[in-house]
């Protein structure tokens, strides 16, 4: 058997004991990018929340290497995994650098005082994520695109082996979207970072992902490489787009066709 960095066995997720998606079987080698796609409300966020331990699993297990999520200490997990959530981070009176510095939390001592080494890592990460020029600005006052980059810097600053991102590129303009994803790819190549994220932009999912998980309905719709996923009529089916309605428009149907070919 191949060694996977991240895997799930018969994972079942949902809210308050009501299962939403059942029997999710994932296996991801170290340094790969997994993207979750699917219609609104299909449970992408639910899956991500369950993986990060924000939501109780209803069934099955999540493994990081050979350790199961349930058996890991919270601080141990914090050193392995960091997150960028859709929820806004509350950063009253904090500069961008202060926000990035919160990523050092699992490594600092009892009072959370940053060491010289921590400071150095913060500065390096801010260079890497192109946020060094805004480090003194107040986090609450920068644009959404910049905020998202600072959030990524914060997640990387936590020196994780895996990072979980929930729709990280929504609301960003095209330049920020590409810039954001390229930082993730750079981190993967340099440090072997494993990435799990949800994306709404299918054309981007197609080009950055190693694996894609399609969610729709009670079970996983499909799981595989982009080549396996993007084939004729699949996207149309995944998002319930029937011939006849808006696909009557030639330009729209051509757009979908173009998405589906690899």
């Amino acid at each position, binding site marked *: 058997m191949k060694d996977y960095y991240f895997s799930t066995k018969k994972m079942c997720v949902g809210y308050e004991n009501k299962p939403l998606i059942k029997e999710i079987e994932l296996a991801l080698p170290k340094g790969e990018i997994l993207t979750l796609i699917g219609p609104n409300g299909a449970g992408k966020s639910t899956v991500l929340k369950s993986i990060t331990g*924000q939501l109780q699993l209803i069934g099955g297990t999540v493994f990081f290497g050979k350790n199961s999520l349930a058996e890991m200490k919270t*601080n141990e997990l914090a*050193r392995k995994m960091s997150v960028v959530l859709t*929820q806004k981070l509350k950063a009253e009176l*904090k500069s961008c650098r202060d926000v990035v510095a*919160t990523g050092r939390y699992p490594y600092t001592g009892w*009072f*959370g005082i940053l060491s010289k080494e921590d400071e*150095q890592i913060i*500065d390096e990460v801010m260079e890497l994520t192109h946020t060094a020029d805004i480090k003194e600005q107040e986090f609450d006052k920068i644009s959404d695109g910049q905020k998202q980059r600072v959030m990524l810097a914060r997640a990387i600053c936590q020196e994780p082996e895996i990072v979980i991102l929930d729709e990280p590129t929504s609301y960003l303009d095209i330049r920020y979207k590409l810039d954001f994803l390229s930082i993730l790819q750079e981190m993967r190549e340099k440090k072997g970072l494993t990435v799990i994220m949800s994306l709404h932009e299918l054309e981007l999912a197609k080009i950055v992902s190693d694996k894609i998980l399609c969610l729709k309905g009670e079970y996983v719709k499909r799981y595989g490489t982009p080549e396996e996923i993007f084939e004729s009529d699949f996207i149309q089916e995944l998002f319930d787009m029937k011939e006849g309605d808006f696909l009557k428009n030639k330009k729209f149907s051509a757009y979908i066709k173009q998405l589906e070919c690899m």
Partner: protein
Amino acid sequence: MVCKEKELSRHFHLPGTWSDKKRNRTYRYLMVLIFLGIGALLFFLLNICIGSIQIPLSNTIRILAGQKANETIAKILWDIRLPRAAAVLILGGALSLAGYLLQTFFNNPIAGPFVLGISSGAKMVVALVMVFFMGKNIRVTSTTMILAAFIGSMISMGFVLLVSRRINSMSMLVVSGVMIGYICSAITELVITFADDADIVNLHNWSRGSFSGMTWENVKVMAVVVFLTFFAIFLMSKPLSAYQLGDAYARSMGVNIRILRICIVLFSSILSACIVAFAGPISFVGIAAPHLVKKLLNTIEPIWMIPTCFLGGSVFCLFCDLLAKTILAPTELSISTVTAIFGAPVVLWIMIKKRKGNHG
């Protein structure tokens, strides 16, 4: 060579600019602490010098130093003014700290022990216990009072928590807190009305909030309780700073949210209980003092906020108690009257600013 240069620049230039910034910030925090420390000392001295009998500062210092002086004046100083000023210092700090904890907990800048009805809950149980004990002619000790007040705080806190689970709005939380406060006050009034005459005078003064009549025994008990709690809260400053980012992020950073929440509720209730047990409910300090301190520091970092909030609350209360004693001397105003005059505008200011922030 290039490598060396890079290393040099790393050591001197890049982090250098930042650590300058950091040094400036730390400098600011320390200045605020020192400034408030001096303020506390100043108002403390004023509080023991000024009263229905003025005692010149030189005399005060001489008496404090243990030199011989007029016996009546020495007695006033040692047995009345000093314990009172010490109590104001300790309880004022505790009140401000309790407010800060509750604001952090509910992520709501106008939360506080008084607004959320926690003080009133404590007041109710203390009144019940006092009337019951007095009816049986048992002396009520400081410890009993604190315990009673703690139970009352926890009851109110329980209600507030139940409400806050169902509604997630800043204003509704406060409205429900005020309602809980009214219910508890009504019950307290009822108890007082049916109590014996002799008890009423005692209870009436206390139930409106007052620092008068503090003894050294009171001060000892409150000092132990408040400083132990303060220390425990200070030790929590790291998880608190993570909690301020939001639940989900704090959890992802390895904070055990459940335990942290329980600790915050417990410690803020202990502080509120201690205040109510000795001085009755005091309004607005818990909101105004932390807010003003935050403005001075320009940060919400718990490690600085916790000690500074405490000092800020002390200064605020010493100042208000001084006014309460002197404005209409020899009649004494209730402390809440004075704290409301200075505290309520701050609350209004916070709410107006919040509105603006939402729109801009």
